């Protein structure tokens, strides 16, 4: 993975010192609260319902085992012994003390981590395919490019005060595991006449007004990546709306101008930027590529593990659902689902962090990846170690074999923690997970993403859930609106609202009616979303509201 040099290290240490000074001035009453708010947000610090919340950047989801151990240490020393992985591959601490945050940042800097631009109206942490470098359908490893963008966007002086937050996602495969079309900018590595470049998408996003991005450039030569991004950001910074925060994202600008006109604005801005000093030289591209060289894979052959070798059915299920093919023979990709019933989706205890760090060292390449489904990945596990690894994970309640299944619920922190939320989301996730505990039943239902957001801001990405649940406030009571048919994958489609919202106690029954509708309507081998795409929303509406003519 990327290793800091003296420049990178100096920069984050200086940022920590700068933030310490800003915090001190605020605590001494020398910095107005509305100014400190904007400054602390640009360093990942929110003030939430119960305590501040610190969001730490995990660039494109890559962590070393030592970094994970440091996160465990921070959660023990400065928090309540756990952390929460988000849908944007970051980690949040829910209970730090404001005056201790500079100390936490110092601890992070000692392992080449930071909280720069994890909130505020600026360019946020770059997200990418969590299977980068190991997926067998990959055109090119996106991580060197993600790191180039990370550096360029870090403390960019022109784009630190944008109309609104700005999210960039990157994929190196045809199969989109980074949801690039629901980002402010989505980039996909493509090849044209043996040359690498980017397909550029802009204006996607979830939140209050979900919109699928428009393709604004089919092929951008790789060396021009940063100058072209500068052009997009400059157009947005100048023309994006600042009068209404709900209309301030780039998606509203792209929609208002139309994708073609927006693209022309960008092209004309780019004319004066193209070939400027931020053009990336071949030497630099090579240098970044070398930072992500392959681990020393052994020359192995694929193992054939028969079910007779594995007496435990739980292990068989785990191998089937949580273990994916690796591009190297003899290796496998292991998903660790942080979706154990009883803890919030994405939550992880300090002890679990330490254990996973050790397992990554013993059984994988010492690296851990965070996925936008709030799970973790050990990317380079030898197939011959799989069963031993499963035993270790089971002991720590980390072997839930539900990856991509109905109980693998994606969920924001909701009203239990977040001051923006209309409703709680974690208890709902628990209710759904408790309803679907019979593994035969879960497996029979098959691939089904349930995404829960506690409010319109859509941190649980409910618009792209096969079943999406949105918390709404009805005269002070928590209600939940259900939508169906969203897809964060290759097809990227937005879910459609079924009808009136449900009170909390009726939600699990409504979900079950939708599941039954699918099971009764499906063709052999057809997944929930495939059935939905074939039969449409009407049968689901009828099922969701029995006794009414929906």
């Amino acid at each position, binding site marked *: 993975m990327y290793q800091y040099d003296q420049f990178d290290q100096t*920069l984050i240490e200086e940022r920590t010192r700068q933030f310490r000074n800003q915090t001190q001035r605020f605590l001494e009453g020398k910095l107005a609260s509305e100014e400190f708010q*904007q400054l602390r947000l640009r360093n990942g610090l929110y003030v939430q319902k119960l305590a501040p919340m610190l969001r730490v950047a995990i660039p494109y989801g890559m962590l070393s085992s030592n*970094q994970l151990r440091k996160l465990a240490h921070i959660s023990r020393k400065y928090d309540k012994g756990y952390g929460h992985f988000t849908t944007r591959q970051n980690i949040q601490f829910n209970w730090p003390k404001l005056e201790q945050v500079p100390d936490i940042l110092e601890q992070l800097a000692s392992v080449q981590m930071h909280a720069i631009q994890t909130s505020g109206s600026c360019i946020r942490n770059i997200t990418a395919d969590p299977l980068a470098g190991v997926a067998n359908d990959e055109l090119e490893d996106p991580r060197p490019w993600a790191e180039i963008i990370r550096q360029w966007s870090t403390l960019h002086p022109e784009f630190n005060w944008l109309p609104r937050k700005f999210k960039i996602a990157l994929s190196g495969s045809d199969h989109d595991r980074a949801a690039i079309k629901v980002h402010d900018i989505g980039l996909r590595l493509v090849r044209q006449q043996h040359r690498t470049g980017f397909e550029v998408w802009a204006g996607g996003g979830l939140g209050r007004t979900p919109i699928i991005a428009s393709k604004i450039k089919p092929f951008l030569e790789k060396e021009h990546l940063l100058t072209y991004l500068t052009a997009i950001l400059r157009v947005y910074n100048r023309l994006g709306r600042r009068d209404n925060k709900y209309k301030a994202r780039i998606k509203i600008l792209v929609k208002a101008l139309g994708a073609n006109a927006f693209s022309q604005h960008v092209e004309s801005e780019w004319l004066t930027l193209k070939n400027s000093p931020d053009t990336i030289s071949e030497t630099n591209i090579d240098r970044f590529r070398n930072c992500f060289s392959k681990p020393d894979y052994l020359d192995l052959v694929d193992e054939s593990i028969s079910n007779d070798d594995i007496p435990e059915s739980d292990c068989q299920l785990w191998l089937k659902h949580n273990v994916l093919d690796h591009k190297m023979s003899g290796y496998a990709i292991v998903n660790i689902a942080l979706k154990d019933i009883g803890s919030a989706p994405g939550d992880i205890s300090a002890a679990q962090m330490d254990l996973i760090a050790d397992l990554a060292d013993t059984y994988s390449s010492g690296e851990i990846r965070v996925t936008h489904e709030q799970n973790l990945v050990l990317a380079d596990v030898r197939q011959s170690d799989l069963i031993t690894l499963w035993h270790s994970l089971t002991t720590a309640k980390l072997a839930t074999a539900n990856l991509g299944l109905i109980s693998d619920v994606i969920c924001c922190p909701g009203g239990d923690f977040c001051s923006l939320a209309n409703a709680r989301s974690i208890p709902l996730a628990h209710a759904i997970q408790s309803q679907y505990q019979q593994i035969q039943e879960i497996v029979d239902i098959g691939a089904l993403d349930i995404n829960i957001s506690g409010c319109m801001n859509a941190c649980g990405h409910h618009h792209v859930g096969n079943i999406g649940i949105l918390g709404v406030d009805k005269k002070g009571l928590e209600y939940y609106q259900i939508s169906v048919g969203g897809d964060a994958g290759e097809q990227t489609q937005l879910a459609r609202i079924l009808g009136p919202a449900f009170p909390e106690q009726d939600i699990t029954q409504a979900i079950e009616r939708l599941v039954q509708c699918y099971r009764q309507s499906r063709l052999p081998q057809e997944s929930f979303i495939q059935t939905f795409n074939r039969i449409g929303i009407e049968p689901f509406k009828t099922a969701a509201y029995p006794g009414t003519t929906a």
Partner: protein
Amino acid sequence: MKKLIAVDPSTYSAIDINPRKQPNERLLALADYLKLSTLDRARQVVLLEPDEDIDAVFEAIGEPPIIALNFPNFFDGRPFSTASILRQRYAYEGDIRAVGAVRVDQLEQMYRCGFSSFEIDDDPLSNTLVSAVQFFSYHYQSMISDSADRHACNSHNTAKPVPGP
């Protein structure tokens, strides 16, 4: 009370440029500025609001020695782009002045985008913080005022790796 400071590009340090060179110098809104004769314009400073389209305006104002860009509030980031465009696209070499809600925590970002003078609060705290014009030793972008040897991306090849992470 406000005071005006500038950055000495050879040392990156802030220098006081009060009192103003022209005693009658005033900031004039674009519409008022355009009504003046060429001779009168020379004694005034044009003040551009963030929603004014610099591409439409630049020729009309005729390359004055000073262009002031207003920050109506400290979180309006448009003047950062306007300054960058003035330097990059129009190779403007005059003084770009930041006025309005100018905060010392933003001086370095402003300077790197091409601002060369700043109207800031004249109080002891601001005075101690103006050294923030050059807080960071390195940067990842090639902005107009950045010296190449402080550009981390270009210099990576010469840098020592830090053990870990």
